[in-house]
């Protein structure tokens, strides 16, 4: 399965600091929420890919 690696096509400012559920090939946003458990229940897709979107105005170190 070819995976989308350009998330600028599907994510924007409104997704920042939130949990998003992506389709398995990461080409679509299936849902967004502040709460991962709520999102997982809402999306109800065992193959969804969950990520937390970093704010775009911040340089990160971990």
């Amino acid at each position: 399965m070819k995976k989308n690696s350009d998330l600028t096509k599907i994510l924007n400012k409104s997704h920042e600091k939130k949990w998003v559920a992506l389709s398995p090939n990461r080409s679509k946003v299936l849902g967004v929420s502040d709460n991962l458990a709520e999102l997982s229940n809402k999306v109800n897709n065992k193959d969804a890919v969950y990520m937390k979107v970093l704010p775009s105005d911040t340089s990160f170190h971990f």
Partner: protein
Amino acid sequence: MEWKVYNYTVEFSELRGGFVSRPMINLTIIGAKKSYNCFSLIDSGTDSTMINADFAELLGIDESKCRKVKVGSVEELTRNGFASEIKFKVEGFEEEFKTNIIFLKDMPTAGLLGQIDFFENFKIRFEKRDKKFYLQREKN
């Protein structure tokens, strides 16, 4: 063994040219009843693999029964995480790994794949200029 190729993940950034690309990969966290896909950042500066504690809730892991772990960062702040044994799979590989992962609350990202578990088990080649990275399973 063959190298598997992955693309850097591109996101918006207001800081540099409008875009930032990061080496991210899907980690499937395997629970007793369900599995969840956690899109994680490969981070050579992280010691143990760390997963956002929101996943512990999904997996039904009881924090009160887990070993507490101190987690430090470059700001010299120390926070408490908790460790629990889980199984996981890395995108592109069928092998299951069992390890103690640190769950940390309020992480800004879903997961960080660090030296223990990830770098110890895979050869990793970053080719940032081409926005690609490569993994090869490295068995002891």
